[in-house]
């Protein structure tokens, strides 16, 4: 009887070995581009299908770093939102879905420890950058759709609609600046990465909408420049302010030429 038991034990061990050795990732990491469903599934896996105490996928985790790399890959939304062959309405719908996903990701990774430091600092900032870049596309597409659907491209109604959209975008970007208030919770590396957001996405926004009313942003930059003690952040904010001023100069020149 003991031999019979041995046979079953060996079989069971073999089965468990096969099961363990062939465990597949819960995330479609081999997929070239993640669509909104992949994101939804990934967020669900991270939030609800992880064991208590399990760490979220992070850049330092050799096993799961590929997951956070996939999550923060901007190509995932660009491949659809930049595709001019696709309809504007469809791209806007996808942009809206990515926007919702991004908010969910921010909420997921905005975990702080007892000392208020971010547990997933790099991941959180990369997700914020993902969101900033996404919003540039999202609001641009929204404006393009407004233009496409209007009868009169010179109407005041259209101009007001576009301006409202750009104001909302600037307001959303201001939220990123709020973190300067708590910059002491960021590590030096975190501050550098955070400052990069101004160099890249804020600069893109100013270049994309040079005629927009950036006065709320300018006021906030002035306040944060006084408050910040971090050189990388201060340098990036100063550069951004200079860029806004340079756009103003161009606009003023254009006005002067017209008057002349």
């Amino acid at each position, binding site marked *: 009887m003991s031999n019979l038991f041995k046979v079953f034990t060996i079989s069971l061990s073999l089965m468990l070995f096969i099961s363990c050795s062939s465990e597949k990732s819960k995330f479609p990491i081999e997929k070239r581009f993640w669509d909104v469903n992949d994101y939804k599934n990934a967020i669900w896996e991270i939030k609800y299908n992880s064991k208590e105490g399990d760490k979220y996928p992070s850049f330092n985790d050799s096993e799961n770093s590929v997951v956070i790399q996939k999550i923060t890959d901007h190509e995932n939304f660009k491949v659809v939102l930049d*595709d001019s062959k*696709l309809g504007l309405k469809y791209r806007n719908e996808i942009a809206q879905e990515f926007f919702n996903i991004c908010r969910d990701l921010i909420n997921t990774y905005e975990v702080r420890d007892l000392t208020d430091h971010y547990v997933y600092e790099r991941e959180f900032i990369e997700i914020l950058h993902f969101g900033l870049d996404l919003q540039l596309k999202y609001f641009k597409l929204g404006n393009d759709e407004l233009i496409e659907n209007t009868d009169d491209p010179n109407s005041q109604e259209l101009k007001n609609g576009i301006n409202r959209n750009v104001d909302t975008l600037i307001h959303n970007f201001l939220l990123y600046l709020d973190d300067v208030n708590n910059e002491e919770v960021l590590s030096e590396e975190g501050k550098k990465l955070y400052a990069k957001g101004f160099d890249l996405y804020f600069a893109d926004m100013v270049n994309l909408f040079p005629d927009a009313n950036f006065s709320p942003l300018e006021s906030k930059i002035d306040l944060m420049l006084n408050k910040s003690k971090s050189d990388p952040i201060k340098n990036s904010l100063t550069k951004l302010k200079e860029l806004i001023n340079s756009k103003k100069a161009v606009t003023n020149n254009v006005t002067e030429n017209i008057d002349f």
Partner: protein
Amino acid sequence: MNDVVLATIIILIYFSPVLYQVGKLLIEIKNGNKLSLKKLYSVLKITTLLFVIVLSFFLSLSHTNFLNYEGRLEYNKIDQITFKNFRGLNLFKETFYGKKEFAYIVTKIDYEFDGDNVSIQSYFYPSRSFVYNRKTLNPQLLTHELYHFKITELYARKAKKRIVENKVNTKSEIRKIINQIRLEERLFQKEYDFETFHSYVYSEQKKYENNIDSLLNLHLDYKNPKLKFIN
């Protein structure tokens, strides 16, 4: 449950009579009972034979759905192909990159010698091609699959062009060219899937559609499957 675990459990249950006999043998062999060994051998023979038969049946069915068979279709029928023609069974794969909406198409360049003629044609194999749902109304997915067929036709025409231009006059040379063309076609099919990411990258999909259509037009002189060659 993990597919491998499930398969292992099924196989273990199926082979449980063999395992039982092995256990029995281990107990009784000490007493020099050779009857158990004979019984084990006969049980093993029957179960293995049955297993091979069942497995072969499912593997064949997975390769070609002979229960809902439709013969290969020539390229000139491409406009009539819908997902209803995708009759293959997908017994082992439920999703593709996590997606339940997927299809695959089997196409091939076939050739046949008839005296001084060789007929080189591209074919679509309905009973080997699969779609997750035959009633699907996803025209984008169908278009992507049909362009795989167009690629096969393009390479069939390229094969004929190469044969004519190189004045090939032996069967072995023709076979060599077709084998080479099949390899080139395979690479192009892979490139098409990669660049369009199976039709997800819409602008790339449109780019490939335009390119393939243009190339097919460029090779219009080689549309006729039959080609005369001198042996």
